[in-house]
């Protein structure tokens, strides 16, 4: 099933970081995984070798996609062979993300984020109700 052709006049992207992709063209299979352990500390203390993904269930628990338990027949009729976009303006593409201009067959992307906040005890007793 040949897809349509994507025509983009102007694409402006400032930042592509942390294993992100700006792809122009077709692909068959895309798989991207991003794991983040976000620690917010009230004081700037860095221990350097912190963070063990295996220690948290967030990063080890399997994510099972919903099962497709119904026969589906899909038919596409591309009466217009062009997908037209004039301008694309993106400031940032980060942490295993993607801008894809073109076709693909299978796309699977996964993000796992654990957020931890560490506050100082002094001066915070009254906040805890």
């Amino acid at each position: 099933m040949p897809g349509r052709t994507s025509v983009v006049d102007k694409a402006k992207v400032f930042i592509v970081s942390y294993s992100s992709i700006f792809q122009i063209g077709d692909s068959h299979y895309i798989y991207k995984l991003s794991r983040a352990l976000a620690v917010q500390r009230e004081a700037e203390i860095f221990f350097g070798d912190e963070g063990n993904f295996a220690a948290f269930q967030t990063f080890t628990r399997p994510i099972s996609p919903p099962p497709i338990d119904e026969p589906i027949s899909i038919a596409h009729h591309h009466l217009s062979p062009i997908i037209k976009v004039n301008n694309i303006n993106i400031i940032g593409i980060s942490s295993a993300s993607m801008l894809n201009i073109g076709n693909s067959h299978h796309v699977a992307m996964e993000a796992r984020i654990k957020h931890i906040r560490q506050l100082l005890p002094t001066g915070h007793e009254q906040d805890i109700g």
Partner: protein
Amino acid sequence: MIFEVYNRNLCVDNINITGVASSSMVFVGDTDTIQLASIFDTPPESLIIGPFVPLAPEVR
């Protein structure tokens, strides 16, 4: 289920996006399957008030 699609003209003038982050995707084109999954975990016990205890050391 029978799913039949007739694609006619598809023209977009401007796409302005501030950020695409954590395994997200901006896709201009056709595809068969897209499967996006994410886990964001910030349970109550992840708010730690007290002296800073370093997390488990990195496993190399």
